[in-house]
């Protein structure tokens, strides 16, 4: 590693991208930019068009309209694409081929020295598993092998589709550190998709949120956080919840009851504790229930799920926001 790390910075630009499968509009008029030196989260519920967008970005699917470019050049027109872009899509390898041989196949195809295979195996921590059949790898090892394949050309851009799927907590921890290292210390452009904000919250610097194939929000994490402060909910327990509910409602918070618990939106735990103390109400438990970020993400993407199940206890359509 290290040769191309500081050489080129590549900006990814998506403009007016659209794609339909029969009557279903998978992606419509989608546009966003991915900046070098940062990790950008590509977020949205399942079926929002994330994978289709990434596959169009990589020239695997043909857009009906629009462009996706790397410093102005579409993927298919890049002279040696693996030297510019590394991609982790679904984990794909022949089960009977060893991980090392899998990598060497793509070294040959791209005209890279075969020694790159061993180098990337070391980078992702698979050196010992390299000579073994890839069919015997665990889900986490498969993800690492897919990542190793993406790193073969030492590319300035990395595109990863749900890379945390199947990783254990330790693997997710490792992946976070690895992606941040690639972006922040090596100046690469990293685009990572996920359907969970909480999964990438600690990794990404910027987010591109999509729903039903359309752009919902493109923002930095700071921007998202500043809009999210106070947006979370707080769980309160105690013997006098009816009285506390009245106090909080009077103070302008919205309150909902279930099983004697109180879920409060629009107030921080500190504010609720202050109101309770002033009114002399005894509390047994007071803790954040959902983070403001999660709440914002739910609100932004609500109603855009393709196959949403009705929420428990409601027989009608899914609630707009929790």
């Amino acid at each position, binding site marked *: 590693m290290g040769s191309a790390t500081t050489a080129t910075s590549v900006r990814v630009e998506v403009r007016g991208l659209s794609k339909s499968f029969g009557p279903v509009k998978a992606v419509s008029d989608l546009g966003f930019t991915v900046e070098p030196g940062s990790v950008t989260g590509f977020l949205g519920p399942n079926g929002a068009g994330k994978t289709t967008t990434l596959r169009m970005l*990589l020239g*695997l699917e*043909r857009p009906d309209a629009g462009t996706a470019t790397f410093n102005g050049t579409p993927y298919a027109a890049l002279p040696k694409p*693996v030297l510019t872009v590394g991609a982790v899509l679904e984990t794909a390898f*022949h089960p*009977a081929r060893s991980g090392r041989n899998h990598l060497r*196949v*793509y070294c040959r*195809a791209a*005209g890279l020295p075969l020694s790159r295979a061993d180098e990337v195996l070391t980078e992702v921590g698979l050196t010992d598993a390299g000579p073994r059949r890839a069919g015997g790898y665990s889900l986490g090892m498969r993800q690492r092998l897919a990542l190793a394949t993406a790193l073969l050309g030492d590319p300035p851009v990395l595109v990863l589709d749900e890379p945390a799927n199947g990783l254990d907590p330790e693997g997710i921890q490792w992946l976070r550190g690895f992606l941040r290292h690639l972006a922040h210390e090596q100046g690469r452009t990293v685009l990572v998709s996920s359907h969970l904000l909480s999964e990438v919250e600690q990794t990404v610097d910027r987010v591109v949120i999509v729903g039903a194939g359309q752009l919902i929000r493109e923002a930095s994490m700071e921007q998202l956080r500043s809009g999210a402060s106070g947006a979370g909910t707080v769980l309160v327990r105690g013997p006098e919840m009816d009285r506390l509910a009245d106090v909080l409602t009077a103070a302008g918070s919205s309150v909902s009851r279930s099983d004697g618990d109180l879920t409060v939106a629009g107030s921080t735990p500190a504010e609720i504790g202050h109101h309770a103390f002033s009114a002399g109400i005894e509390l047994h438990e007071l803790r954040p229930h959902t983070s403001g970020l999660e709440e914002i993400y739910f609100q932004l993407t609500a109603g855009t799920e393709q196959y949403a199940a009705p929420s428990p206890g409601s027989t009608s359509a899914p609630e707009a926001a929790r």
Partner: protein
Amino acid sequence: MISLMRAEWAKLFTTRVWIGLLIGACVMAGGFAALFTGLAGQEQNGQPGIPAVGTQQYETLAFSVPANTSVLLLILGVIGMTQEYRHRTATPTFLTEPRRGRVIIAKLIAYALVAVPFALVIVAVDVLVVMIYAGARGAAPSLSAGNLQTLGASGLVLVVFAVIGVGVGALLRNQVAAIVGALVYLYVVEPIVSGIGAIQAAYKWLPGGAVQAMTSDFQAPELLRPWQGGLLLLGYGLVAALVGTLIAVRRDVT
């Protein structure tokens, strides 16, 4: 292009499919050679069966045996192409070379070239068995120009079938469907066409008819001349390759 072909050979030789198919083809070629030689000259139900050892007809038959293993080379080509879709390696393959036509062409050439040593081994097994067994029965064939031509034509059939296999694989993409389809075509459709009088005339234009034209020296007015059969078979290989390439270039990789 050379690097893409190297990648194809690396893919082929890092799994063990090729060993099984090559051994299968050798066993088949050796087995049929022994069977034909053993039965040569015997009458079957009062009808003349396989021509006797020592006759030119017998030698042509025995030296065209390698062409009967063409189905295994066809499967080699089919697997070579369809495994990309079956194991989803088409994605990294087309990411490495987004000009998909080049990938398919590299695969076609790589499989045509790899089929040459395969064909040589299969032909060698056939020659070995025929020489020893027919020699033991009194008349080992000479490697005359005519016999060498038959052997060469048999080997060429094998190479072309590997190319057709890659083309069929690119066309159908589903490995099981492609193999089953090819088997049904070769062992059900063609025999029916050649057996039904009204449509028998069409048989000489089919791949099976072309193979027969290339490898049999019998006076057979219903077949094409050997060189015409060779061109026809090559044509089938190229058409399969061309259609397969066009489809792979246009379709989304899924």
